[in-house]
């Protein structure tokens, strides 16, 4: 796989955005889940991502000790390896309180705790994730076309 670094990089992004979309789908599906196994209402799930600098950290560490060349206005950078999932965690925002004494899960004060999921936010996140997914899929196609062109050299 390391022969095509662009595929690896874009692949990491496709996986990441797919993960985001899965979490969003789960959030929306459980928007009205007032009772979970752990007790309280469903808690919104979200994920934290960061740039994947796998081997790049080695190189960047070496670069720090190299003498600074004044002819370069901006120091040289390393090639990132895409994006990686740091962790998936539950959003600890307060749950929404709805007054409904008749509800089976109503508390003593008559309020029902609903999940801290806002549909508008989830939809926005979904559109963002989808845009990114499409862009990265296009990147894969472009890389593929570059390789195809390269293979035609000399023919």
């Amino acid at each position, binding site marked *: 796989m390391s022969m095509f*670094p662009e595929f690896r990089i874009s692949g990491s992004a496709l996986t990441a955005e797919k993960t985001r979309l899965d979490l969003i789908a789960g959030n929306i599906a459980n928007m009205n889940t007032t009772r979970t196994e752990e007790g309280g209402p469903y808690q919104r799930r979200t994920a934290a991502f960061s*740039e994947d600098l796998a081997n790049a950290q080695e190189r960047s560490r070496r670069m720090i000790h190299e003498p600074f060349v004044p*002819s370069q206005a901006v120091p040289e950078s390393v090639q990132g390896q895409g994006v990686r999932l740091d962790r998936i965690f539950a959003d600890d925002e307060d749950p929404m309180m709805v007054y409904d004494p008749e509800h089976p899960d109503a508390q003593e004060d008559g309020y029902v705790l609903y999940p801290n999921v806002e549909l508008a936010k989830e939809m926005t996140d979904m559109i963002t994730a989808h845009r990114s997914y499409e862009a990265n899929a296009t990147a894969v196609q472009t890389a593929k076309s570059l390789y195809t*062109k*390269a293979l035609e050299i000399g023919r």
Partner: protein
Amino acid sequence: MSIFRDHTTSEILKGLDAASMRQQVTANNLANLNTPGFERSDVSFENQLAKARSELNSPLARTHEKHFPQKSPGDVEPKIKKDTTTTRRIDGNNVDLEREMLNMVSNQLRYNAYTQQLNTRFDNWRFVINEGRR
């Protein structure tokens, strides 16, 4: 060194390296479109080459050893640079989707142009080798 690598061909080869590098960098930028705090990167080559060429015509006088040495066009190499000038969003990310897509398209065209140039050169060589009469 290969007899086929004249000056211009060497530059085209470096251009290909740069375009290939640029695709990777753009892929990484796109992969981190939604990563908080991420700074996009670029590949510099063509601009540096143009600058080095224009400096060749107006040589700078180097009167002190601490002056920057003038870069000759043959020394210009493709390099990855972080882009610190683009504005950032609230989450610290400065990747613009449309810009990356445009870069990707133009880079692809550049790559195609370079490979086409190479193919033409190889074609010429092949013609000279096989068809040239005494």
